[in-house]
């Protein structure tokens, strides 16, 4: 193991962890993967809010996927994820925040409601689909007329790093019909041709369950 390799605390299925894995891969950062399981008591010492992911870089610990990615953006100048242009930067941050504040957290809360028994499984499922649909429709509107390869240009940027995991989760876990969101559907196909994204997918992580089990 190389000295000084950052450590990523991650869970295979976590779309927040997926975002950071993509960013690390795009920037060519070699990292150590440490799997965190649900309600791992030791993990609270690493991240008081107990969510994955967290990045440990030497003696520095940072958690929250957006905070980690912006930290990586500062530390590793290769493959910049934010453009210089203020408007383009803002749209990247807006799309990232639609995903990380307005879709994904609601996905979790519906799941928690299910676990607490307060929501039935059908209801929980429908809530999540409603929030995904609202967010995806809004992003389609924001990017209306987009003819670039990816969301905000012909290079992968922050919005793409946040969109890929959300679309993946939508398709694989919540039966989202991506044909309703043609731009996002097109972007996703393009993302999945990129090694940095392919290697980051949940199914390929060390803690993913073996196929067929």
């Amino acid at each position, binding site marked *: 193991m190389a000295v000084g390799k950052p450590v990523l605390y991650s869970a295979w299925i976590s779309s927040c962890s997926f975002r950071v894995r993509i960013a690390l891969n795009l920037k060519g950062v070699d990292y150590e993967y440490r799997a965190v399981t649900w309600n791992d008591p030791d993990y609270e010492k690493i991240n*008081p*809010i*107990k*969510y994955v992911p967290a990045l440990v870089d030497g003696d*520095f610990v*940072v*958690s*929250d996927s*957006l*905070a*980690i990615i*912006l*930290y990586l953006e*500062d*530390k590793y100048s290769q493959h910049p994820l934010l453009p210089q242009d*203020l*408007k383009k*930067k*803002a*749209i990247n*941050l*807006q799309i990232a*925040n*639609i995903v*990380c*504040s*307005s879709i*994904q*957290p*609601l996905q979790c*809360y519906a799941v928690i409601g299910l676990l607490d028994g*307060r*929501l039935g499984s059908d*209801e929980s499922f429908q*809530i999540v689909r409603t929030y995904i649909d*609202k*967010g995806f*429709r*809004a992003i389609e*509107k*924001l990017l209306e007329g987009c003819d670039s390869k990816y969301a905000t240009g012909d290079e992968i940027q922050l919005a793409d790093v946040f969109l890929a995991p959300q679309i993946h989760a939508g398709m694989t876990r919540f039966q989202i019909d991506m044909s309703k969101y043609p731009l996002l559907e097109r972007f996703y196909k393009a993302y999945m041709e990129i090694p940095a994204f392919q290697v980051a997918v949940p199914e390929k992580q060390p803690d993913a369950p073996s196929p067929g089990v």
Partner: protein
Amino acid sequence: MAEMEGTAKAGRPRLYSYWRSSCSHRARIALNFKGVEYEYKAVNLLKGEQSDPEFLKLNPMKFVPALVDDDAVIGDSYAIALYLEDKYPSPPLLPQDPKKKALNHQIANIVSSGIQPLHNLTVLRFIDQKIGAGESVSWTQQQIERGFTAIENLIQLKGCAGKYATGDEVQLADVFLAPQIFAAIERTKIDMSNYPALARLHDEYMGHPAFQAALPDRQLDAPSST
């Protein structure tokens, strides 16, 4: 500071805001802190004005705040804060040091992804409807307490607080914390004795002019006191 509608000068940014929206509150603090004069455009969420076709064009998510600055239209408080940070670098909201910067983003995100979205108006209406009338109150308390416990622990763990959350200067974390703590105290009546660092920060924010001018009650669309 905010100007009345109808007296906007050319070139001044326009902020679409609702007096009580904590996300709008963040944007107001950032604008005030940076000394940016802006036009205040009220969007009445209770009357559903966020669904008006004109507003939908600005923000298809139907959320406030939205900032219109020349041809830039930004419908997210985080994106607005970082846009202002780039456009008006002084006084800065983010430190140069990447680790301190990351900590600010982490605290801001606990609020903006981990607390506020779980008790916004849409979610609360849903809970009252689906789970039971009044259930939204205890739900809100739980979300806030969970998030405040995490932030309090984080601040203690990092030993980062000075006069403000991450040092002796106002930074991004404070922009996000102030509205959340204010709402928790004023509206949800959270017992802040469990969160001494956050309670102290609240007192500091209430004494800072940029934060005072951003308070919900001071906004043009706040109901007049009777």
